């Protein structure tokens, strides 16, 4: 039996096991929306296409499955761009479906026409313009395969309206044939042997873990490998939740707002093992002074990440799970050498413990004013271990990374690479849709929150009980901090002059609003929010000029930190 293009698309989504999609209807996707009601696919209507993409991203980051978003042509499609770029930078598996004007009109500047293929070429792993209905099911199959395999990423399918209307026989291809796309999963045996020898010869090893560990679902393998070698573990913002932060070997985050001891450990190490990390400039600081005494082993599924920014002594291309398991086996076969290495690095562990005790992570507590870090600590204290935390971008994001001791993978959703303000609330929509029973908290600043605050409506409409914690300092705090430290305290355009009543805003949407203005109210407000059904917005009036510390000034070496006074 023949099916229309929009039915074929939905059949394909079903075949891929898609149960939830996020989107926004419009002229060129109206056929898809007409037919979607016939399929067991839950559609969540966000209030902006950017939010639909972030929600699909949040869904993907928490579940590990491919997130799906739908938007119409023209402005609908351009609104997805920030969401797609966010997912691309953080390697999130997603398929974005955009409507397009009918094929005979393409190129004619038709109503709501944009060349979204051209626009998204550099921010997608791959993209497709469907030109013939006969290609549709093959393209959808390939799109999902490309999105979730290798280094994951977003794939966009641009689907012209006339192809949604046309009909053809539906057959879902069994196999994907892509002669130009064959990711390397298995680590090269000779490289692994060399790596094992380098590890056994090291006395000051450090594991530097990035978002790849989450993408590969390699947390357990990482923990086993780390415990075997007793090497300290520092994580990037993207890697935070893939290693339990209360583990004695955890050093927390490295880089610009990293811990003193993580940055000192990297700078003094003799072997840096990069695990699914890409040596971002926020991590390395001044490249020439980064890990100057260390040999570098770089394990990554994406060959382009290797030797892009730093010299690498030993590259290993492969799936982290595979590589870490094999390395553990290889080391396990040499118990005496391994014991010698672990014993030999006892001095290193003492050195690190000393850095830790000299400059632990901390802040100036107060009993008169709410310290933002205190709110983060209280949130950790009062939420469940498997609570999913999303953030926006700025000071609150760094405080969350520094003070919320993550313990489970896929519980920290944050825009690491692109640094997208307005990510956290829609990402929380996606996370809560994926896990209705778990606690989902969006930690936000007052600036970021206003970038996608319209999604309060989505939370209320779908009864998604997301809790929002706004650390309100009435500033664009991170930029203000830079202005304070490097621009003579000229707070140009960073003061959010208009004091918004966030409690009333929440209530206007039909959500609950709570406010804390004194430290003793913080725990109470959080407890009340967690106990209240449905979405709750918590506003914390925090110390306005609190800074994120330590801080490595831009262009400085990471051991040249400015520490809290």
């Amino acid at each position, binding site marked *: 039996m023949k099916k229309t293009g929009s039915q074929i698309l939905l059949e394909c989504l079903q075949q891929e096991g898609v149960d939830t999609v996020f989107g926004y209807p419009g002229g060129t996707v109206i056929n898809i929306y007409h037919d979607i009601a016939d399929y067991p696919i839950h559609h969540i209507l966000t209030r902006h296409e950017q939010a639909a993409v972030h929600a699909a991203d949040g869904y993907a980051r928490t579940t590990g499955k491919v997130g799906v978003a739908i938007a119409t042509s023209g402005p609908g499609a351009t609104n997805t761009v920030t969401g797609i770029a966010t997912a691309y930078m953080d390697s999130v598996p997603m398929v974005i479906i955009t409507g397009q004007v009918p094929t005979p009109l393409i190129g004619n500047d038709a109503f709501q026409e944009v060349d979204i293929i*051209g626009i998204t070429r*550099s921010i997608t792993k791959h993209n497709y*313009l469907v*030109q013939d209905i006969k290609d549709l099911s093959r393209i959808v199959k390939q799109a999902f395969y490309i999105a979730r395999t290798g280094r994951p990423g977003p794939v966009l399918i641009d689907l012209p309206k006339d192809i949604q209307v046309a009909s053809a026989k539906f057959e879902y291809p069994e196999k994907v044939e892509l*002669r130009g796309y064959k990711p390397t999963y298995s680590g090269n045996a000779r490289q692994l042997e060399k790596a094992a020898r380098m590890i056994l010869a090291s006395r000051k090893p450090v594991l530097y873990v990035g978002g790849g560990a989450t993408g590969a679902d390699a947390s357990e393998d990482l923990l086993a490998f780390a415990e075997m070698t007793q090497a300290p573990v520092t994580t990037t913002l993207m890697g935070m939740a893939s290693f339990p932060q209360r583990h004695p070997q955890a050093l927390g985050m490295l880089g610009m707002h990293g811990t003193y001891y993580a940055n000192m450990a990297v700078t003094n190490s003799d072997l840096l093992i990069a695990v699914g990390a890409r040596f971002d400039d926020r991590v390395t600081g001044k490249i020439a002074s980064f890990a100057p005494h260390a040999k570098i082993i770089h394990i990554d599924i994406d060959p*382009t990440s290797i030797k892009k920014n730093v010299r690498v002594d030993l590259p290993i291309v492969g799936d982290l799970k595979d590589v870490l398991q094999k390395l553990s086996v290889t080391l396990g076969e040499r118990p005496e050498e391994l014991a010698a290495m672990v014993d030999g690095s006892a001095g290193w562990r003492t050195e690190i413990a000393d850095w830790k005790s000299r400059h632990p992570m901390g802040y100036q507590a107060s009993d008169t004013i709410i310290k933002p870090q205190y709110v983060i600590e209280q949130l950790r204290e009062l939420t469940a271990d498997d609570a999913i935390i999303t953030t926006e971008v700025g000071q609150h994001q760094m405080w969350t990374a520094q003070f919320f001791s993550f313990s489970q993978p896929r519980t920290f959703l944050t825009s690491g690479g692109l640094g997208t303000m307005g990510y956290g609330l829609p990402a929380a929509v996606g996370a809560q849709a994926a896990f209705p029973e778990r606690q989902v908290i969006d930690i936000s600043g007052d600036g970021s929150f206003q970038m996608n605050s319209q999604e309060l409506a989505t939370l209320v409409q779908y009864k998604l009980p997301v809790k929002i914690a706004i650390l309100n300092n009435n500033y664009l705090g991170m930029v203000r901090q830079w202005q304070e430290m490097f621009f003579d305290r000229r707070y140009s355009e960073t003061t959010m002059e208009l004091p918004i009543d966030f409690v009333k805003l929440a209530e206007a949407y039909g959500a609950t609003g709570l406010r804390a203005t004194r430290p003793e109210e913080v725990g109470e407000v959080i407890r009340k929010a967690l106990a209240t059904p449905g979405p709750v917005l918590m506003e914390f009036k925090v110390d306005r000029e609190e800074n994120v510390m330590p801080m490595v000034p831009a262009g400085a070496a990471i051991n040249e930190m400015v520490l809290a006074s």
Partner: protein
Amino acid sequence: MKHTISVLVENEFGVLTRVAGLFSGRGFNIESLSVAPTLDPSVSRMTIVTRGDDRILEQINKQLNKLIDTIKVTDFTGQEYVEREMALIKVAAEEETRAEVLRIVDIFRAKVVDVTPRSYTLEVTGAPTKLDAVIDLLKPMGIKELVRSGPVVIGRGQ
């Protein structure tokens, strides 16, 4: 250092812009680029001449390979290969220079493909350095228009 890279790609919609966009987006240099289908019409071959140090060339190679539509990347640097480029040159040919132009045509085994009372159009094929030499010699006579194809290369042997 100059590198000549041959890239086999799927002969798909938009593949040229994917490759060109990769170079411009990452700040890699393209000196020339030529593209046409191979014997297998589903595959196209691009020949790209680029410049860069080892680190940049490694990235170019890897980034090209990362494109889904890329089937194979070969950097001919350090290998045995034949390199040819074609130029079409419209050169002024007044009474006093017509004979000299034809002598140059003869020496370089070029061809005259169009004649007017005041100009010759020449077709020259060879290594890019040979084309440079012809162009240098013709410049004093007045080159009205010059079209170069960019080089194509093929490995020697087998």
